[in-house]
């Protein structure tokens, strides 16, 4: 595994919905690259497009425009435009773990059928091979083999999430999109699953796109973090760096808003005014300007470019001024 190898490149990914006359930009013009074995955390509040981003990348929903380039054996193939036969080859490489451990498993299938389902569609595994693979993966995710004949309703949330993980890993993917994978779980179970995900990553060299609204979890698991607001990326950089020194005013507010489990922790809390807007009618100019205390005339009129500054990507007209402050 080489941490510098690029496995995935997302270019200008956009997803719009149209209902009548209104056009909703759920996701607009998102670009980034992901390297082998790293975890990219994607954070933001409801309606920021993080879930849409994940679903577009795995082709759970079709993006309106943009590319998702998969680097494979020296080739670069656009996953979104892959033909049926190409998909046969590429599909296993990008998989997804869902948020809701109750809704993402077909209640009518046994655990064995659920985990082995992807194998039905790929590779011409014999019954024996399938059994062997299923056994191997169930052991890896920490499920008992005796569970295989049971149905999902027999399991608790944490165990179901393990089943979901087994299903998404059985095809040996390179990239796994984890969509709020631990958000529905209680704290004590959440830690079990986070540890499991980390172990699996080390062992299998997986690249995670870790979507979550829980900042502490994202910080714990991610190498780099992408902050989204109303369908756009506002800041993207190394985790430690970004948490120590957030540059975008939204990132600052977001980080300061997270409650810290320490009664003596003192930090100036930035309380943002106003509501989280919906992407139905995003404000003109920088989407964040109505809630931003640094907003200038420029912010109100034009959307700032997404540029690299001090080793960080940021979309803000004022980040320079703020640093000087």
């Amino acid at each position, binding site marked *: 595994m080489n941490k510098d190898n690029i496995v995935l490149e997302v270019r200008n990914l956009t997803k719009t919905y149209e209902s009548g006359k209104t056009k909703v930009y759920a996701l607009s013009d998102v670009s980034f690259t992901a390297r082998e074995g790293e975890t990219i955390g994607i954070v933001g509040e409801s309606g920021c497009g993080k879930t849409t981003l994940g679903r577009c990348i795995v082709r759970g929903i079709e993006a309106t425009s943009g590319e998702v380039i998969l680097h494979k054996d020296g080739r670069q193939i656009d996953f979104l435009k892959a033909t049926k036969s190409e998909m046969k080859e590429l599909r296993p490489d990008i998989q997804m773990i869902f948020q809701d451990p109750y809704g993402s498993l077909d209640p009518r299938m046994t655990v064995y059928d659920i985990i082995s389902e992807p194998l039905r569609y790929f590779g011409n595994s014999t019954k024996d091979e399938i059994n062997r693979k299923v056994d191997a993966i169930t052991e890896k995710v920490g499920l008992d083999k005796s569970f295989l004949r049971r149905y999902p309703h027999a399991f608790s949330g944490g165990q179901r999430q393990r089943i979901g993980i087994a299903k998404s890993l059985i095809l040996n993917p390179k990239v796994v999109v984890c969509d709020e994978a631990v958000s529905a779980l209680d704290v004590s179970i959440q830690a079990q699953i986070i540890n499991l995900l980390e172990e699996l990553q080390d062992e299998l060299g997986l690249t995670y796109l870790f979507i979550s609204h829980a900042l502490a979890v994202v910080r714990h698991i991610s190498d780099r973090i992408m902050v989204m607001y109303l369908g756009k990326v506002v800041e993207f950089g190394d985790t430690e760096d970004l948490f120590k020194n957030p540059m975008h005013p939204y990132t600052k507010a977001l980080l300061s808003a997270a409650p810290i489990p*320490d009664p003596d922790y003192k930090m100036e809390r930035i309380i943002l005014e106003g509501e989280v807007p919906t992407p139905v009618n995003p404000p003109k100019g920088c989407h964040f300007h109505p809630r931003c205390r640094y907003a200038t005339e420029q912010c109100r009129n034009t959307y700032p470019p997404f540029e690299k500054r001090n080793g960080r990507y940021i979309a803000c007209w004022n980040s320079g001024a703020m640093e000087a402050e």
Partner: protein
Amino acid sequence: MLFQKKNEQKRYSLPDNVLLKAEDLRVNIKIDGAVLNAVRGIDLELKSCETLGLVGESGCGKSVTSKEVIGINPSNCSSTGSILFKRKDGTVLNLLELERDGAEYRAIRGNEIAMIFQEPMTAFSPLYTIGNQMSEIILIHHPEATKKDAKEKIIEMMKLVGIANPEIRFDQYPHEFSGGMLQRALIAMMLSNEPDLLIADEPTTALDVTIQAQILDLMKRLQSELGMSILFITHDLGIVASMCQRVAVMYLGEIVEFGSVRQIFHNPKHPYTGNLLRSLPRIDSDREEKLYAIKGVVPVPVDLPEACGFHERCEQCMEGICDKRFPPVIEVEPGHFVRCALYGKSEG
């Protein structure tokens, strides 16, 4: 009949600074013929003007406890023990002796004890305007007030909680409000009779982080301005740390640890509390390589054995002790209580 009952009522008393005191509170829920032991004998004490956090994972009984205090659990719940509450006039009542939805209890609800909920979007009926529903709380408890009085008071309250254009908002329907605004409206309504106790049942769980910060900020401000006690129910230890003075940690229907917020966070005694804190990813300190994970899952609270509820998952479980009987409650330091056999006679 009714008078007799009243005469039979015992005289209760509470120390000066104590507003609410629950003793050996147990709540059972009947579901499909099975009996769920949701709350299994808890003692709780809430002082005037303090915020007490009731924290625990889902199914630990924290929400049932809070609803029992205000008496709105569904009819398949039955409770024993006592919940003493000091009214504004200084008399002390055992809330469990009151008839649910009876006149006496109703006079307390919304007037002396109020409650806000996890999902503000469902706490209002979609069919009436916000103003109509909010005014009710004034009209119920102040029969002499006119609709106009109520509207004035409500608009004043809406201003207080930071709802812009209250005159217009007053006549709008709930679906025209955002989640955060509805929570503000709910808070405004529930506080308009200046209750002594506000029960907040996960009031920010359904909201976004930045909105959560707004609401928490608002609650702190209102507490200092209006001076009420808050019973804050949450699963988020971060919120507890920033909001509460004292904390009760619940596990499987029991309070396993009770103390000041610093005692709980800096010197946790119960293995569950300690492990829970260690299993939490942090933003404030350096990243650990690996999170501590508590093994196993929370058992279903049906036909539980007479034992510490945590013993199956506890690494310090002492065979023959923890799985055989309820551990006693020990005061390990002033005001810091633990229900764990580790702190038995050897220390005391």
